C-alpha cells in the first residue's frame, strides 16, 4: 500500500490515498465504540458466569407440551403471524410510493429538462426526511404509544409495524433500485416513457429478486418485532412468553422459542422459493 503511494505521481492510483484514509478512519472510530458498548468478550467465558447461565438454561428443558398450552400457543402463533403480515402489508403500501419518489434511478431531470432538477431534488429530499422520521423511532416505542391510544391488543402492533417498517422498506427499496443498472430505465425515459412505465420495464426486471428477498426477510423481522411488542401488551407470542417468564415456566418459554425457530425456517423457505420463481 505504501509502495503504491511512493510511485511517481503520474502512475499513482488516484484512489489509493483516499482508501487508506478511510480504512484508518474506520479502525480509529470502531475501537472506542467497542469500549463504550462495554464489549468484553472475556466475561462470557468466566466460569462463575458460565455456571449462572447453565442453571438458567437447564430450567428450559423439557419444552412444555400440555394440550391446553399447545392450544394457547397455536392461537398466539396465528395472532403473531397476523400482526406481522398485516403490519407488513400496510408498510408495503406506505413504502412503494415513498421509494418510487425517493429513488434517483428514475429521475427524469437527470437527462433534462434541467429546469426540473432542483424541484426533483427538493422532492426527493422531502420524501427521504419522511422516511427517516418514520424509522427513527423504534417500533417498540410506537407500540407503547399506540397501546395507550388504542388499548391493549394486536391493532397497536400492526400500526407500529406499519409506520417503522414503512420507512425501512422505502429506504431499502429506493437503494436497491439505485444499485441496479440504471441504463435500461434511463434509455426508456430518454425515449419519452413515463416514470412508472420505466420502473416496470427497465428497473423491476433487474431488481425484482432482491426486492422480494428483502421483503420476505423484513417479514421475518416483523415476526420477531411482533413478539417483542407482545411484551408491552400488543398480543401474540410475546404476550404469552411474557406470562411464561413471569410464572418462571422455562418449559413453556422453550416451546415458544421452538415456534420462533419454525417461523424463521418458514420465512427462509418462502424466500428461497420466491427467488427461484423470479430467477
Amino acid at each position, binding site marked *: 500500500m505504501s509502495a503504491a503511494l511512493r510511485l511517481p505521481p503520474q502512475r499513482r492510483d488516484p484512489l489509493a490515498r483516499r482508501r487508506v484514509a478511510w480504512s484508518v478512519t474506520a479502525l480509529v472510530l470502531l475501537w472506542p465504540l467497542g469500549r463504550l458498548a462495554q464489549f468484553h468478550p472475556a466475561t462470557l467465558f468466566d466460569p462463575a458466569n458460565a455456571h449462572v447461565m447453565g442453571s438458567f438454561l437447564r430450567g428450559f428443558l423439557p419444552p412444555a407440551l400440555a394440550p391446553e398450552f399447545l392450544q394457547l400457543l397455536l392461537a398466539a402463533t396465528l395472532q403473531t403471524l397476523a400482526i406481522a403480515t398485516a403490519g407488513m402489508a400496510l408498510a408495503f403500501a406506505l413504502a412503494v410510493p415513498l421509494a418510487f419518489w425517493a429513488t434517483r434511478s428514475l429521475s427524469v431531470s437527470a437527462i*433534462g*429538462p434541467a429546469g426540473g432538477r432542483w424541484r426533483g431534488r427538493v422532492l426527493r429530499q422531502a420524501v427521504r426526511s419522511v422516511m427517516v422520521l418514520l424509522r427513527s423511532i423504534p417500533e417498540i416505542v410506537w407500540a407503547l404509544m399506540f397501546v395507550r391510544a388504542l388499548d391493549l391488543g394486536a391493532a397497536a402492533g400492526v400500526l407500529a409495524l406499519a409506520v417503522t417498517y414503512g420507512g425501512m422498506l422505502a429506504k*431499502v427499496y429506493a437503494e436497491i433500485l439505485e444499485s441496479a*443498472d440504471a*441504463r*435500461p430505465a434511463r434509455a426508456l425515459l430518454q425515449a*419519452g416513457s413515463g416514470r*412508472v412505465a420505466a420502473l416496470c420495464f427497465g428497473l423491476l*426486471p433487474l431488481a425484482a429478486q432482491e426486492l422480494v428477498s428483502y421483503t420476505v426477510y423484513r417479514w421475518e423481522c416483523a415476526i420477531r418485532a411482533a413478539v417483542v411488542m407482545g411484551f408491552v401488551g400488543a398480543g401474540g407470542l410475546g404476550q404469552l412468553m411474557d406470562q411464561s417468564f413471569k410464572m418462571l415456566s422455562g418449559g413453556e418459554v422453550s416451546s415458544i422459542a421452538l415456534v420462533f425457530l419454525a417461523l424463521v425456517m418458514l420465512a427462509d423457505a418462502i424466500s428461497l422459493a420466491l427467488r427461484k420463481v423470479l430467477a
Partner: protein
Amino acid sequence: MSLRLEQVGVVHANGRRALAAVDLAVAGGERVALIGPSGAGKTTLLRVAAAALRPTEGRVALLDADPWRLGAAAMRALRSRIGFVHQAPPIPPRLRVVTAVLAGRLGQWSTARALRSWLLPSDIPGAQAALARMGLGERVFDRCDQLSGGQLQRVAVARTLYQAPALLLADEPVSSLDATTADAVLRELVDYSSAAGATFVASLHAVDLALRWFPRIVGVRDGVVMFDLPAAQVTPERLAALYAGEAVGEPEPAFGAPPRATLPFASA
C-alpha cells in the same frame, strides 16, 4: 429541418470538452453517418441530437422544436418521436423479448396501457413483425438472457423500429455483430428510414459500412467536425487525416457488465 445544431459545444461536468462549435443540419428523411476515431465526440453528438444531453453552448433544434425550451409533457412527446439504438443494448436480461420490444412505444402509451402491456403483452403481432425484420421472429416469447449478445442487440434495434420514430439515431448499432448480420441490420434500418421518411443518423466505426449505406458522411475528431461530404467525395486521404495516429478499424470496446451491488440487509 429534422435536426439542426448551431455552434454546439459540450463540456462535461468533469471539465473535459467533448464538442466544440459543431454546426450540423440534417433534412427530413436524410441519412448521415458519423465517423471518426474513438473518443472523437460521436456519442456526445448523438446524445445532443436525442435531447438526452443539454449542450453547454450553442443552439439545438430537433424536429422543428427547441427541446430545452419545452415543458415536461412536450419534451416527453418530442422524445417519443426520437429513436435511439444504443451501443450496448439497454435491456434487462430477465425481460421477455416481446416485452423488451413493446417497451419501444412507452412514450406513446398511457401509463395504464403500459402497465397492462407489462402484465400481458398487448401488441404481439407488432412486436413479432419488428423482430422478424431482425431475423428473430421465432424468439418472441424467449427471455432476453437466452439470447446471444448479437441477438440482444438486434432485439434493441427491433424495439427502436417498433417505436417508429421520425428521427432515428444509432450509436455504433452494429459494432457487436458479425459482418453479414451487421450489413443486414443496417439494410433494415435504411429501409425503415426510407419507407417512413425518417431521418437516420448513425455513428459507425466501420468506414466501409458508412460509405455503402449513407449518402452523406460527417467526419468528427477531437469534438470538431473535420468534414461533411457526400460519400463519393470521401477520399482515402481524408480518411487517413481523420484517423491519423489511430489504429483504423479496431472495434471500440463495448460497455462492461454493470456493477451488481448487493445490499447488506439491515438487521432487526
